[in-house]
């Protein structure tokens, strides 16, 4: 036993000691997107995210002509079902020898993939799911959380809106894990910033089409801010009815928990005018972001969602770590990722926290601008505030993550 361990240690150390040569499993770095390719979230992830990952791989190879290996990218559909995600993740790691699973929208599938990744000691960088559990209760050695999470959304929007004068709040949330989690954190942020919750938040059925009950309740409560934690089609319904009942005209502002570009497109930006949300990125944030967006647009035909941009950044960050580690061995790549600080067109002032594998970065509070102020199709947001990386995410002191070390696994 002892000798074999020494032997393994020697074998592992040998390549590094003798030749600083790239060591790849199967001679290639294989990246797999496991995400919603056809369903409700495919507009924000799906085929656009695949293109984005391919662009990242191409750019990496062009920039690193001396990189001795190949990089391949595939995409697999998890159909938003946790059991399918588990099966597919196993298959990808086992049969297709995937080194990294990334993207993934949907919190339930994220937790499933994180668990498989840990069992197989591979790598998972989640960009599309919001649940803060990935870097808290359910954190693990092999999983990283990129782009955004519920804490960042709630904390950012709740704090910024309250500080800018929206002192009284009434909120509604969809009655499942994502919504409950988001509401709890938003409420905490509002109260911490000196705001007041005027009535207990209401849980709405999920999915749901008719929110008029709650809109009318808001109308009679007259808070300064009506907060909605709904996402996707539910959010579109809420905003449609918020306008229909004329809440904005009655001086009741709108704060949105999770807002994607496609939600704005679904109603037209005038319906959202003045609404506040927090995003990790938007396409015309700065020149670098816009330049990248023009390339993406040319390939895909529409503007990227922040998840699609995050996938490019995550893939690049991963490949960069492989280059620095000179191997795709998960242990060494994880070591190269941990504590790494970087900047790219997506992530500003980013650091990969070693303690909980949260990738922290600057995030932005945005207000939706009216259509007449838009310079082109998709010009939705005005930046109203920047929350710095260190303030945007769960402080480590509050993190519930107990990261198992390699030794104890």
């Amino acid at each position: 036993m002892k000798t074999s361990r020494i032997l393994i240690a020697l074998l592992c150390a040998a390549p590094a000691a003798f030749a600083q040569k790239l060591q790849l499993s199967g001679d290639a770095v294989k990246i797999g997107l496991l995400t919603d390719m056809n369903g409700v979230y495919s507009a924000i992830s799906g085929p656009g995210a695949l293109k984005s990952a391919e662009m990242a791989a191409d750019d990496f190879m062009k920039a690193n002509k001396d990189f001795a290996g190949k990089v391949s990218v595939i995409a697999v559909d998890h159909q938003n079902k946790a059991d399918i995600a588990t099966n597919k993740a196993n298959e990808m790691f086992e049969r297709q020898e995937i080194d990294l699973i990334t993207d993934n929208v949907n919190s339930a599938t994220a937790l499933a993939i994180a668990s498989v990744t840990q069992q197989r000691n591979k790598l998972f960088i989640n960009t599309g799911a919001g649940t803060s559990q990935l870097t808290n209760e359910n954190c693990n050695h092999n999983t990283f959380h990129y782009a955004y999470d519920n804490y960042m959304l709630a904390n950012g929007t709740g704090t910024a809106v309250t500080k800018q004068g929206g002192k009284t709040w009434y909120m509604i949330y969809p009655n499942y894990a994502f919504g409950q989690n988001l509401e709890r954190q938003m409420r905490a942020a509002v109260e911490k910033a000196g705001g007041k919750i005027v009535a207990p938040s209401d849980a709405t059925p999920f999915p749901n089409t008719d929110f008029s009950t709650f809109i009318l309740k808001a109308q009679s409560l007259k808070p300064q801010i009506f907060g909605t934690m709904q996402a996707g089609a539910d959010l579109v319904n809420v905003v449609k009815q918020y306008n229909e009942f004329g809440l904005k005209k009655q001086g009741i502002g709108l704060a949105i928990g999770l807002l994607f570009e496609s939600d704005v497109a679904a109603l037209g930006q005038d319906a959202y005018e003045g609404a506040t949300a927090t995003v990790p990125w938007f396409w015309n944030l700065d020149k670098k972001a816009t330049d990248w967006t023009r390339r993406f647009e040319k390939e895909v035909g529409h503007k990227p969602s922040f998840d699609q941009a995050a996938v490019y950044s995550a893939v690049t960050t991963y490949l960069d770590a492989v280059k620095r580690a000179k191997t795709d061995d998960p242990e060494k790549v994880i070591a190269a990722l941990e504590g790494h600080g970087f900047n790219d067109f997506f992530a500003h002032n980013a650091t990969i926290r070693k303690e909980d594998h949260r990738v922290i970065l600057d995030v932005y509070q945005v207000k939706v601008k009216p259509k007449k102020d838009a310079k082109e199709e998709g010009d939705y947001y005005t930046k109203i505030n920047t929350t710095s990386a260190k303030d945007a995410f769960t402080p480590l002191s509050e993190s519930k993550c107990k990261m198992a070390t390699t030794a104890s696994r």
Partner: protein
Amino acid sequence: MNWQLVLIQVFNGLVNGAFYALLSLGLAVIFGMLGIVNFAHGALYMLGAFIAYAIGERFGIGFWPALIVAPIAVGIIGVVLERLLLRRLYDVPAAYNLLLTFGLTLLIQDGVRVIYGISGQPYAGPAQLGGATNLGFTYFPTYRLFVIGVSILLCGTTWFIIERTRVGAVVRACTENPTVTRAFGIDVSLWVTAVFGFGALLAGIAGVMAAPIYSVDPLMGADLIVTTFAVVVIGGLGSILGSVMTGFMVGVLVAIGSAVYPPIANTLIFILMALVLLLRPSGLFGLAEAR
């Protein structure tokens, strides 16, 4: 909870009920005559909304013309489906029809998704009905009152035609005894097609009217069809009056439920369905013998 809030919720419920009623009315008419459980009804409703959106987008056709054009288009699609596909399955057990219409639902949904994508599309309601109307106890969006009105009018007319006119008599005769009806020189198969087309048309109208207030996306019908089936079961399969009354009743019940205790609102429908099935299997308004 004060009476004012209850009244507001009743009106809210009537709006939802208006959609349930229109959809379940179509289902009931089709089931009553053809014995088909038309699972594709939700997809036809969604098509109504999307056709309105598409002709607005391409040709600048507004809400009012769309309210005529889109339902007729959906009705024609219904006629084509009946002639080409459903017709072939009348002699086999009902499960085959269910499978066929379920498959059609998937095809229609995915077809729309391929063209327009999965996320919602914007659709503006008519400007004339943009404001709010004073009901004495609250200001209520005028468009929603319009929806309630149109639904009651359509349901009432349909009931009247089927129960009180000669056309209705023929339709009922085709249902009761096709063989004898044929012997009177009436082309039963033509009437069957017409009825299916009419059911589809009602779904189309509901779809267009839903477009300004609900999210216009490929799955909008899938979300609604389950509730609608529950309404039909509660009302009594094939009972026209039952479907309409139950549609409005369920709408109001859910609205009041969601004001009292939101988490239970959608479950209420199914609790009611279970109770009705236990105590009165043929439905609240159904015939004594369950079909």
